[in-house]
């Protein structure tokens, strides 16, 4: 019989006591299923069964990290020993160390667990995939090819324990659907995609996701380049979320500490237009990345990064919080056992300023509605510069969504982008990702095309 997760935790803490080092152990278990289909192919059914142990040790404030995919106590002991050997080569820093236990218990969030998760049979999951594909095709006769309709679920448990006595576990269930299709009209062909998620499969809305993907592909047929210039720009919710996620690195406390963020010197000063309040809130019910505790086991918290245009702070883990003194941690992300936790976002979003999407479009008459961005991973969080590929629609004189446009390059800086925000619609969408999206009106951006 294989060893369980508690045995792995105990083995790691025992090995740390013998080696006389501080230690944090994270134990992960996940089981899940996938199924997907594509044009001309059958259905693929996949199952996942994973576990792992990650340990960080601090020996004289020198950090070392190692991981293993075995819960066997002997293997865990060897993993701790490997981390200790690595720590001997690292530089000491008195701000390193494991988290202390919280004064109050870390609560489970019931809305992150679907009680009916295990009752759903494979055939029902396959039906979700077929419903996705059918809804996309129903968007219009031009939707003629299916790249992939996917269903994926996971039940996962993370346990984090430290030699300081912290010991927390978080269970969550998650179900996800996505679809990518292509549409054509005989002269042109375009792609469209959409995704959605819920704590369990029966809470998903595959028709809405499939329909959105089909409509996006159809809407781009016949797109042409625009004329270069500086124009008002409206970002749709997906583009807003993508851009927020790409720029989130500029708010990392570690980047600030190491002099690698353009925002480092701006605390307490104006960093955005007065209408901008930017919040990272991992406690937000219904957010994809929400969690009661972070990757180091600390309770998560709502952190206001920008308030009414003024930069209020940064995101911290235990190390940067201790370094900067007085700052609160709780923003360490641990997405895999193969790497130590790192500062990141789970539910980054802009607070709405009020008007509707339609009102924003009317204010951007003659401008550009962006519905897709390419190259988000090239955004530079140090300088805050971005230059991205984009597609979308021209905005008519009455704010109507006009002809499709593409092969556009959008350029700017983080400061320019935040300073250019004029309004944020009251249409926050809980997308499957670490940032939430709202429709955003920008006074102007540099647009390159014809």
């Amino acid at each position: 019989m294989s060893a369980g997760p508690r045995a792995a935790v105990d083995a790691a803490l025992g090995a740390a006591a013998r080696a006389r080092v501080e230690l944090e152990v994270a134990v992960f278990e996940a089981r899940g299923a996938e199924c997907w289909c594509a044009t001309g192919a059958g259905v693929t059914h996949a199952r996942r069964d994973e576990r792992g142990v990650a340990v960080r040790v601090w020996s004289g404030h020198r950090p070392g990290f190692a991981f293993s995919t075995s819960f066997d106590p002997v293997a865990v002991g060897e993993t701790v020993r490997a981390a200790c050997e690595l720590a001997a080569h690292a530089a000491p820093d008195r701000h390193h160390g494991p988290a202390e236990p919280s004064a109050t218990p870390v609560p489970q969030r019931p809305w992150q667990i679907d009680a009916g998760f295990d009752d759903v049979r494979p055939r029902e999951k396959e039906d979700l995939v077929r419903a996705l594909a059918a809804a996309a095709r129903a968007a219009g006769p031009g939707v003629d090819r299916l790249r992939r309709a996917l269903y994926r679920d996971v039940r996962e448990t993370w346990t984090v324990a430290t030699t300081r006595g912290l010991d927390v576990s978080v269970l969550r269930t998650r179900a996800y659907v996505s679809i990518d299709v292509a549409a054509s009209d005989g002269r042109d062909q375009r792609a469209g995609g959409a995704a959605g998620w819920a704590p369990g499969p029966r809470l998903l809305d595959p028709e809405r996701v499939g329909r959105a993907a089909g409509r996006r592909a159809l809407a781009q047929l016949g797109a042409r380049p625009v004329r270069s210039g500086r124009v008002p720009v409206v970002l749709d919710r997906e583009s807003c979320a993508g851009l927020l996620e790409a720029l989130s690195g500029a708010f990392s406390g570690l980047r600030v500490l190491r002099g690698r963020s353009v925002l480092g010197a701006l605390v307490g000063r104006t960093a955005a237009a007065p209408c901008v309040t930017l919040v990272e809130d991992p406690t937000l019910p219904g957010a994809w990345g929400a969690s009661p505790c972070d990757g180091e086991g600390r309770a998560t918290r709502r952190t206001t990064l920008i308030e009414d245009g003024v930069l209020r702070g940064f995101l911290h883990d235990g190390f940067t919080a201790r370094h900067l003194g007085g700052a609160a941690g709780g923003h360490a992300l641990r997405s895999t056992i193969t790497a130590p936790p790192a500062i990141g976002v789970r539910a980054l979003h802009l607070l709405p300023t009020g008007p509707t999407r339609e009102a924003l479009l009317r204010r951007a008459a003659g401008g550009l509605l962006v519905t897709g961005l390419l190259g988000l991973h090239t955004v530079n969080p140090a300088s805050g510069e971005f230059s991205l590929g984009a597609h979308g629609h021209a905005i008519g004189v009455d704010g109507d969504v006009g002809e499709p446009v593409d092969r556009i390059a959008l350029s700017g800086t983080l400061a320019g982008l935040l300073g250019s925000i004029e309004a944020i619609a009251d249409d926050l969408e809980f997308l499957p990702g670490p940032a939430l999206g709202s429709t955003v009106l920008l006074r102007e951006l540099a647009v390159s095309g014809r």
Partner: protein
Amino acid sequence: MPSSFPVSFDGARRVLDHALARGGCAAGLFVEVTRTSTLQWDDGRLDAATAGTDAGAALTVHDGADVHTAHVNALDEERLAALADGVARTLGRARERGVVHGAPVVAAPDVRRWPDAIPVAERAARLVAADRAARDLDPRVTQVALTLATSRRTRLVVDADGGATLESIPFVTFQAHVTAAARGRLRSATKADSATRGWEFLDEAAAIGLAREAARIACLQLDAAPAPAGTMTVVLGSRAGGTMVHEACGHGLEADFFLERLSIYAGRLGQTVASPLVTVVDDGTAPGRRGTSAFDDEGTPARRVVLIERGVLTGLLHSRSTAAALGMAPTGNGRRESYRHPPLPRMRNTFIAPGEDDPADIVASVEDGLYVAAMGGGEVDIVSGNFVFHCAEAYRIRGGRLAEPVEGATLAGNGPAVLRAIDRVGNDLGWAVGTCGKEGQGVPVADAQPTLRVPGLVVGGAG
């Protein structure tokens, strides 16, 4: 067979036999053990040292058009048996076939010193030297972050038709990220190199060279003007690497996109799709390159595939399933990030073959344009062929000469249109490395191109 590898060929065949006990027409087992160690240098010191072993197996059984697959990150008999049992249960019929015992093939890479066996102190010495070199280059350098990742990826691939391969692949990757500051401006640049070679790949001079190059570009950006916006003639220098060919053409020739008629190139085999000056090759056998291995992740030997020859579309990149569906031979491009992911047709080492022009003549031929010396990342929309990529180092061309540096430039275009527009091809060739993303999987690749002239590209910039 390395004595330390936890699953034998016979053990893998037993798992396959178990999986086929209740039906299924084909099956394969992929077993992988990856040992990694990473040193991170930041703020003038060794900031983090990590290591670990990721081990797991993926089992796939084909049942007509449907596929049943499962993975587990353990290699003990108990959990491998459970893996096979789980897949067999979903079929629930009588056995339809057995497992053919073919002769196993073990690849022996040419490695002098395996990177996973190098002591931490020896690896850290490279970082010390590189940090000093970057800081000595220019007083405006404020931070040097270095990453040295070494790994050994060993995978055993066995299928029910008799295929059986085992290969260990070494990886050494070094990345320098340098930040420079002056007059309230903050700029950074990254340079990296990576190879499927032993520790001998990264001597001290190589590490220093990459760190100094990152420092030079970061400092250059401090004085750079915003890139111009609009349509202009662009010269892509060979030093820039092959991001353009990767994005503009390579993805569209991965056969799954072709098979599903999603690629802009679908149905165009044998047709002219590029300038007659353009020949595009993907070479999985190029010694030591980041995308090289003897076999792909389905056990097919790697090959050199000519994708476009003098402008005519001649080949595609195949996994086994796309090759079978199109009635073609697999090309050794069935790749997976790890046992957690299914194999897909992927690029390896992709390049535009050198032409005949002197690179200096190509620059001299442009009155007013943009010269791209280093590229950042990029992305392509397969269906429309539209792509974008970021320029990490670029200069204006004025009067046939390189002029002031510019920053923040992005090139946007359409793959087939750009390939047709290329009108000068240099006689040089420069490589770059990267990690290519597709359907949530990242695989190591290299790409290259000679100096190219492309009239009429959209340049995005704030200037």
